[in-house]
């Protein structure tokens, strides 16, 4: 059910710019973010959860696999350990470059401010919405019990 929602396609509302402003321009200081957001707490940031210049451990691979909901065989874990470590090594090479003066790239397209007006359009019929549901009950999607938070 690839939707024909072209009306939601961008209306170019603002100016375009080829450079995305650097982080500093946002007035965002590293002290701003509370614990839940702090870079230093985020394991995906360099130096926090993963060791960059060394190979990934088996546990690292299992952790990432779990986050991606992938079940890996022992052989696959070993293979991924090698391949993912190789990727990280490439980044380690890149990291040696001095990027002090280079604004971070958050986006590869030179567009900004693509917005919609707040005007409702028809949604999809419920039968289309539930077409790919593995299980349906009435007009709901049915899933295995989810623990109450």
């Amino acid at each position, binding site marked *: *059910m*690839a*939707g024909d*929602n072209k*009306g*939601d*396609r*961008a*209306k170019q*509302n603002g*100016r375009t*710019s080829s450079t*995305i*402003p650097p*982080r500093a*321009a*946002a*007035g*965002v200081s590293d002290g*701003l*973010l*509370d614990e*839940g957001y702090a870079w230093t707490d*985020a394991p*995906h940031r360099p130096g926090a959860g993963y060791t960059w210049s060394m190979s990934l451990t088996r546990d690292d691979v299992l*952790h990432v696999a*779990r*986050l991606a*909901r992938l079940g890996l065989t022992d052989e696959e874990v070993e293979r991924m350990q090698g391949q993912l470590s190789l990727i990280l090594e490439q980044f380690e090479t890149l990291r040696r470059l001095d990027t002090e003066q280079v604004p971070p790239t*958050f*986006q*590869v397209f030179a*567009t*900004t*401010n*693509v*917005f*919609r*007006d*707040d*005007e409702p*359009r028809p*949604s*999809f019929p*419920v039968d289309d*919405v*539930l077409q790919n549901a593995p299980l349906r*009950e*009435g*007009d*709901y*999607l*049915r*899933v*295995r*019990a*989810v*623990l*109450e*938070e």
Partner: protein
Amino acid sequence: MRYEAVIGLEVHAQLVTKTKMFCSCSAAYADAPPNSTVCPICLGMPGTLPVANKRAIDFTIMTGLALGCTIPEWAKFDRKNYPYPDLMKGYQISQYDAPLCINGALTISLPDGTRRRIGITRVHLEEDTARLLHRVDASGEAHSLIDVNRAGTPLMEIVSEPDLRTPEEAKLYLQKLRRILRYLGVSSGNMEEGSFRCDANISLRPVGETAFGAKVEIKNMNSFASVERALEYEIARQTDLLERGERIPQETRGWVEDKGYTVGQRSKEHAHDYRYFPEPDLPPVVIDRAWVERLRAQMPELPDEKEQRYRTVLGLSDYDAKQLVADRRTAEYFEQALAASSAGNGRAKALANWIINDVNSVLNARGIEIDAFPVRPEGLNELLDLVDSGALSVKIARDVFARMVETGRSATAIVEEQGLRQISDDTIVLQAIDAAMAENPKAVEDFRAGKTAALDFLFGKVMKATRGKANPQLTRRLLSEKLGSS
């Protein structure tokens, strides 16, 4: 040892936009049949493209301005990854390190008059999740049903600094924040319906200590009262642990409303490994200063400014000003009535009294909001016109008001129909006085013998004879003259 609490609040407020945050589906999910306001975008189908709702961004920036935030030159959206069935895409579009608003503050007034400045770390925009219903079927199998309608509706998150010190301060902060959102018209702020949700972070430390203790996050509080109670409970629980020399583990606890305690929640493994990264489908938001100023110009007068104007320009008391601004629609009602007043601002005090006492007591008794109040501002003003012109005494005006509330008819119509117009004609009042004096010679004698209370007795007789319609000031004056002269 004495401990002080360090409290920070995270509020999620639903925005009152017509459509969702990133698609054009209706955001009015509350009364919609399940899965009826859903499209491939909010369902997270591959190949779809989210496009941000301009109004939601405007609302968020306005909120930031109202909270004295800095609006950065640009902001961006990020993906927050976590696997849970209420997220159709496997991630939530949120804002990580470049939110729309940063570094604001909100000042609360404590009952003793102290003012406390509570820092606002950030205000950002994200999307709400789908609703899960937990069921057990006939065979006893537990399962969950998903209604995607709410998924993708705009949610604004307001994060405070850990500047709050007591449960009462937390409640005052929330009340004030909600009032501001309602004045701005960006959120209904209804806590029971979940359009205004609050999580609290709380830690304890010995008084005088500046470092923070272990932070406990409390969830599932769905009223101001439960926030206050949950924090009180948590302070007692943590104090007890600390006094017994135990450590407080950093954890998330859920408030159990009917039991009145918090309980540790099974920590979701890897729950905080959100792996935020910039949302590649949404270009950055560049906020030029003209945009910010345009929004600033559109902002209504906020409660603090209004309260001050009521005191300084209209001469209302502190109490009256606070009462009127507590609810935006009450303030609007007051201002509409004042605008209709022929007596101009001179009627402010009288209108304030009527609204705070008479109108509010009907609202409370009937459990309705002022929008549904049968007497409109112009109607209340008309009633006060009759009082000021001398056509009605305040006492009779109260009866007329009650009839207006009951029947929805105008003050003038009720006064004419029931012949309630105040008698200010000397001749008619004098006739009633003569009759009262003739019927109560004893009272007349008493008065002349020095018993001034007898005047009140005769006054009462005159009022009774005229069914309360005689102009009281006139009656009293004529009665004194009459008793003194003959």
